[in-house]
């Protein structure tokens, strides 16, 4: 996998009546460091030519190298694996993963097979890498199959 050539920083700018605009600039990827950290010298220069104030910043880093292949399937991206997990403050979250492999579910059931190797690897990856908003680890509760009604692409027109 390889990082995209550039990282982007988007700044939200407000004027004196609270209206919001934005500006975006690209920087070299610098090995995947937070691009916002490259902008410490920028703010004073911006304030010298603008009456607006920077009220928020978003840094974006992308990896455009594909992983996996799209298999032929009767179902499609609307078919979802819903994974529920809780954070350190008992905050509850659900993440939806599109187009799940039917092999991870129990026979004649919408629940995942708790012994399925790929599911167990996903559960371990989530509990080892996903964080809550305090930066603490999360714990997976359960996972099940669900059908999404929301589509973002041309499928909605078929």
């Amino acid at each position, binding site marked *: *996998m*390889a*990082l995209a*050539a*550039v990282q982007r920083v988007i700044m939200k*700018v407000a*004027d004196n009546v609270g*209206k*919001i*605009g*934005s*500006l*975006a*600039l*690209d920087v*070299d990827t610098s*090995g*995947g460091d*937070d691009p*916002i950290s*490259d902008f410490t010298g920028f*703010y004073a*220069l911006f*304030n010298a*030519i*603008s*009456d607006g*104030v*920077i009220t*928020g910043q978003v*840094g*974006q*880093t*992308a*990896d*455009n190298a*594909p992983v*996996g*292949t799209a298999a*032929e*399937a009767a179902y*499609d*991206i*609307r078919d979802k694996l819903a994974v529920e997990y809780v954070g350190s403050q008992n905050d509850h979250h659900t*993440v939806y*993963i*599109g*187009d799940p*492999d039917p092999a991870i579910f129990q026979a004649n059931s919408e629940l995942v097979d708790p012994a399925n190797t*790929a599911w167990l690897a*996903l559960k371990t*990856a*989530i509990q*080892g*890498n996903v*964080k809550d*908003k305090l*930066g603490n680890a999360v714990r997976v509760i359960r996972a099940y199959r669900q059908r*999404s009604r929301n589509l973002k*692409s041309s499928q909605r027109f078929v």
Partner: protein
Amino acid sequence: MASLWARASILLQDNAGNIAKVVVLVAAAAIDPSGGAIAALRTAIVAVTKALSPRAESGTQAGAAGEDTAGDGAYSAIEDRAVLTFRGDDNSTYNYEVPCPKPDIFLTGTDTVDPGNAAVVAYYQWIEDNCVGTFGQELTFVRGERTRKKQMKH
């Protein structure tokens, strides 16, 4: 306060070309989507789906920076823009907008950015030294002009 997390966005695409995103929070230091936490999640997710993952992205966030109080610009100042044009070293063109530009960065009686204004020079030189084009091209300042956006949201 620095964010305690980074946002991981993993794109999935089925064999019909439909797309969906999986968005979770990961550790603040896990910025590189080609390795570490995001790559581990991506690999585990691809193993349980029939979909391809064509792209992964990390997002970081930070709060306000620079001055706290907006200047006394004209009403609806955010629609007022200075558009600074840069040329990439492959002759591509990039336009970067400055919302709410201060009136004194323009040549008197014109909509042209004063290329000799000290604040303008410092600003575009910082961009030349620190920023790049979409494909990593080096940038050179060309000119700047005042323009007006359509009405912005509150």
